[in-house]
């Protein structure tokens, strides 16, 4: 909503305020000012001058030398403008003055343009004559401005006087952010009412007088509202003998300042009243209306209609139409018909000011893909009580401007007039909600400024129908708070029962995941929850995989964001790819993010959202680096027992020989592996890339913050090293299983200290060496006890084809 301040002041005559103060105060009372543009911001030393003499420039064909009377003196100005003539009055910026911009109408520079006297092709010039663009205005606001050249002032302009004053440019256009509940403020009068209340000034709306000749509109036409649920009110008036002409300058300028292009008196009046009251109106050429009647009814299924923009629209019964006795003439509240629009030949017209159901208009406009200025107003849900006043105001302007002869009487179909709501005033509860002690009398004064009456007998506040947003005590509390001042409400802290601030167990575990990942060198990534269905192909996921059972977004931003991810891999690989393509040598990332697994498709209930702890990296480290992070994390959250890794070939996106399921006891809690080279290629990562994913809902039940001290060993440990020749296919995990199974009660720990394949070892074998530690809690172990354990281990190792190294 853009409105010049001068228009607001027209209804709040006492308003004297700077632009900044207006901005601050209006914003604090709830009418947020987004910004303002001062027309005279960069206009300085610009006066009315009269051209007394024009001579040719001695050195340039395209320039002329003018003697210009600026009141106190006559100065010489050189100009290249094609349209100057002797005797004309023109805007002249004097030496040291400022204009808003260049004459080509390009964007205005922030600080304007300074004008200094100087020589043009050897001839002195003491100022500059201005075009309308140089004055910071536009041809829309000043329709008499020439296409190219100096803006010529009216003959009655006083030589030497301030041009900014003469052109009414001491004004500023304000842009407001109106909240959706304040339908009344999408109008100049609505904002003016708020301004009057904010600045404690009198609100003086236009006085609408009765108009019309002795004839009666009912003799010309009748109106029937067949679907009154969609059209609570329909007002119509008639104008004869229309004389199309430009509207007066003041009206043109106000409209132009609001961003509306002036057209002619009838169109301009319609637009003017729409801005003023927020009530859209429509005009039909009477000559095109047949059957002497208007019918408001729903469209037929499959009906087609040509709107005044020339387009054919397909309709259905959800859309409300305006018809005459024979045919449709407009889509209610959205756009009139080509067949009944006002042309230059119009003599008589029918004026419509109606109230349509906001939701219906919004849905219809959406369905038709046709959002208009009018539909935008209607869809907010207008107050039906303003329709009559607005149409009378328009007729009054038609008479005042001599645009036509208004026919007497009004057709007003208004079955169920909307009545003011009543809300019981509970001053105590308002104070209780706000934390204030505002006297009831002060509240009543605030209400009075907002035209909310109070009935002392029933203790009710009577809410005018234009304030549809006020329904209950809390709404009244807001009105009180706005004008009492949000800034004056005290600041306190809640009292009452104490509560414990905390993170949930899940969030605490996630915090540890972040800490550990970062400690291990991984940085946190965040990726989108939705992605393209094509990622499954990229990840080599088979057609029948459950991972492809993804939830689809009905109205996505495009295919790339159309399904909810069922795996976190694409986000991670895309991020690694970004880093690789930007020539970052290494990247180590982790993400904690949800995947979305539907219980059933199409979705009937909410899907399972599973938090995934995903790690990815390239450039530094290998499979075992990832494994290290996984184990550091699991240990930190209290999973102290051995995690096992099962080599699998199940994940198609991982290297078949370099992947494993991560298991705790029998539960799979995640997987780890090197990215399949083909997948790495698809993501354009030219390095070996590693991934690990922990499924947090599987990890959480295993996690614990409980710790128990077990005492520090008092007796010495016995350490034995064992060096083996192992067939290549045997995993060290199998060796460890043997050590654990056969180590006996004194086995304390074991550690791999060497693994070797190469020339000194037979082909098909590898050398593996472990150091095994035994210890008893209650005594010093004897060699015999340790030897027995070692023998058991060695024997079992032999059983799976492992020999001691000689």
């Amino acid at each position, binding site marked *: 909503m853009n409105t010049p301040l001068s228009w607001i002041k027209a209804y709040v005559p006492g308003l004297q305020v700077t632009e900044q103060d207006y901005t601050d105060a209006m914003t604090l009372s*709830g009418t947020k000012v987004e910004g303002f543009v001062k027309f005279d911001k960069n206009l300085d030393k610009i006066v009315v001058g009269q051209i007394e003499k024009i001579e040719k420039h001695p050195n340039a064909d395209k320039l002329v030398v003018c003697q210009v009377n600026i009141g106190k003196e006559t100065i010489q100005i050189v100009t290249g403008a094609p349209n100057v003539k002797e005797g004309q009055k023109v805007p002249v910026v004097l030496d040291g003055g400022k204009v808003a911009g260049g004459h080509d109408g390009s964007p205005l520079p922030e600080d304007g343009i300074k004008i200094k006297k100087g020589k043009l092709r050897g001839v002195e010039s003491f100022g500059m004559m201005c075009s309308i663009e140089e004055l910071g205005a536009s041809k829309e606001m000043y329709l008499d401005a020439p296409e190219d050249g100096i803006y010529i002032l009216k003959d009655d302009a006083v030589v030497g006087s301030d041009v900014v004053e003469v052109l009414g440019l001491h004004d500023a256009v304000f842009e407001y952010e109106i909240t959706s509940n304040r339908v009344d403020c999408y109008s100049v009068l609505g904002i003016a009412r708020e301004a009057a209340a904010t600045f404690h000034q009198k609100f003086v709306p236009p006085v609408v007088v009765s108009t019309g000749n002795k004839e009666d509109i009912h003799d010309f036409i009748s109106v029937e509202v067949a679907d009154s649920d969609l059209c609570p009110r329909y007002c119509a008036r008639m104008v004869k003998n229309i004389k199309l002409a430009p509207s007066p300058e003041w009206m043109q300028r106000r409209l132009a300042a609001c961003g509306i292009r002036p057209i002619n008196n009838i169109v301009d009046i319609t637009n003017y009243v729409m801005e003023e009251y927020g009530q859209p109106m429509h005009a039909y050429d009477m000559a095109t209306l047949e059957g002497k009647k208007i019918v408001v009814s729903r469209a037929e299924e499959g009906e087609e209609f040509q709107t005044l923009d020339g387009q054919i629209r397909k309709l259905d019964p959800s859309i409300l139409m305006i018809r005459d006795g024979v045919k449709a003439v407009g889509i209610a509240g959205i756009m009139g018909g080509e067949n009944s629009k006002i042309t230059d030949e119009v003599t008589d017209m029918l004026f419509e000011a109606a109230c349509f159901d906001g939701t219906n208009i919004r849905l219809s406009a959406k369905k038709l893909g046709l959002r208009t200025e009018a539909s935008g107003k209607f869809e907010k849900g207008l107050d039906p009580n303003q329709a009559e006043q607005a149409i009378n105001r328009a007729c009054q302007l038609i008479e005042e401007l001599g645009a036509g002869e208004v026919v007497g009487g009004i057709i007003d179909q208004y079955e169920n007039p909307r009545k003011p709501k009543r809300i019981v005033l509970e001053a105590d509860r308002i104070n209780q909600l706000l934390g204030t002690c505002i006297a009831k009398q002060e509240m009543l004064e605030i209400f009075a400024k907002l035209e909310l009456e109070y009935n002392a007998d029933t203790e009710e506040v009577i809410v005018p129908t234009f304030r549809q947003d006020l329904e209950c005590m809390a709404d009244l509390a807001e009105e009180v708070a706005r004008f009492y001042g949000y800034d004056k409400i005290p600041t306190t802290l809640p009292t009452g029962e104490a509560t414990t*601030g905390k993170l949930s167990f899940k969030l605490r575990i996630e915090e540890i995941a972040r800490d550990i990942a970062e*400690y291990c060198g991984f*940085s946190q990534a965040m990726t989108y929850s939705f992605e393209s269905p094509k990622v499954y192909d990229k990840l080599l996921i088979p057609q029948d995989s459950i991972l492809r059972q993804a939830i689809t*977004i*009905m109205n996505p931003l495009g295919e790339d964001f159309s399904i909810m991810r069922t795996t976190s891999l694409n986000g991670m690989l895309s991020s690694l790819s970004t880093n690789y393509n930007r020539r970052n040598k290494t990247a180590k990332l982790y993400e904690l993010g949800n995947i979305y697994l539907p219980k059933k498709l199409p*979705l009937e209930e*909410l899907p399972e959202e599973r938090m995934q702890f995903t790690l990815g990296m390239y450039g530094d480290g290998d499979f075992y680096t990832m494994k290290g992070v996984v184990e550091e994390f699991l240990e930190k959250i209290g999973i102290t027992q051995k995690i096992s890794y099962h080599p699998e070939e199940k994940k198609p996106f991982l290297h078949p020989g370099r992947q494993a399921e991560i298991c705790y006891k029998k539960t799979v809690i995640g997987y780890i592996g090197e990215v399949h080279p083909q997948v790495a290629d698809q993501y354009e990562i030219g390095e070996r890339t590693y991934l690990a994913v922990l499924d947090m809902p599987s990890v959480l039940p295993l996690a614990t913050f409980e710790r128990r001290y077990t005492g520090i060993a008092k007796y010495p440990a016995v350490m034995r090293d064992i060096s083996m020749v192992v067939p290549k296919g045997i995993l060290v995990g199998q060796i460890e299983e043997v050590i654990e199974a056969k180590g006996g009660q004194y086995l304390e720990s074991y550690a791999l200290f060497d693994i070797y394949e190469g020339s000194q070892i037979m082909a098909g074998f590898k050398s593996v060496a472990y150091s095994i530690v035994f210890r008893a809690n209650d005594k010093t172990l004897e060699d015999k006890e340790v030897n027995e354990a070692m023998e058991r281990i060695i024997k079992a190792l032999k059983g799976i084809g492992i020999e001691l190294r000689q």
Partner: protein
Amino acid sequence: MEKKLKELKEEALKQIEASQALDKLNEIRVAYLGKKGELTVLLKSMKELSNEERPKFGQLVNDVRKTIEEKLEESKTRLALAIREEQLKNEVIDVTLPAKKNNVGHRHPNTIALEEVERIFIGMGYEVVEGPDIEYDYYNFEALNIPANHPAKDEQDTFYINNKILLRTQTSPVQVREMEKGKLPIRMIAPGRVFRSDEVDATHSPSFHQIEGLVIDKEITFADLKGTLAEFAKELFGPQTKVKFRPHHFPFTEPSAEVDVTCFKCGGKGCRMCKGSGWIEILGCGMVHPHVLEMSGIDPKEYSGFAFGVGLERIALLKYEIDDMRLLYENDMRFLKQF
């Protein structure tokens, strides 16, 4: 003999004095005090002396031995010290050589900002809770006083899965889920991912994060809301921070407000960051609408409460002066390393 002893002593002390190495000292010890050392030899020759002279001379020899031993010990200490000093002198390192680092990773700026916010509210007794990303229309809209066909539904550019399930457009549905649990009083914050159908650009993302706050108790007032958020702003942006509450509209709160804080870059004087106004908008809030309380089974005559919603990315962008929202989702190491 006494003269010889005296000469021997002086010669020994001289040698000790002159020696510059520990092994030299050892040689001297052996040469004088060893089994075949000169002093030992001298002592052996004592048997040539008379019985009367013998104890006196023995005493003299012992004194000399003691003097030499003391001198040896003293020199040893002196030398050891000199050697340690020499060693230290030779062990000077270049302290400006690069550090050996663990190359610790970095938290995402969103998370840093979130943890900061969580810390503040946990300190005030708030519990951190979560709700689903994919949500029922009922929780996201209807239970928040946004009935079917409400224009606010269009304003939020919702991604729909079907006509009753959607991607939540705000974290506010968590308010309803908490209230429905029926456990009062409530002091909670609910951080989480939200979605709106905005094309990606420097200031928009179709997926971002909010932190919802909700307090429900007896006699909770708008003044409490102001106090709480003023406290929060000071904690987050520094003790000098002032807050400004501007009336606004949200369907699920009444009265509602938007909150500005004094620009933490210029302190309120006006700069590029605050577009010259000195203020930066950070959140929306208000008193929970009585309809919302009722729909969640709470009697608005007995209980009241306030709610607020903060855009996490907004805080992160402002606090760390990040000029393009896209950076938050690209995960470029060169970006992440700065946090």
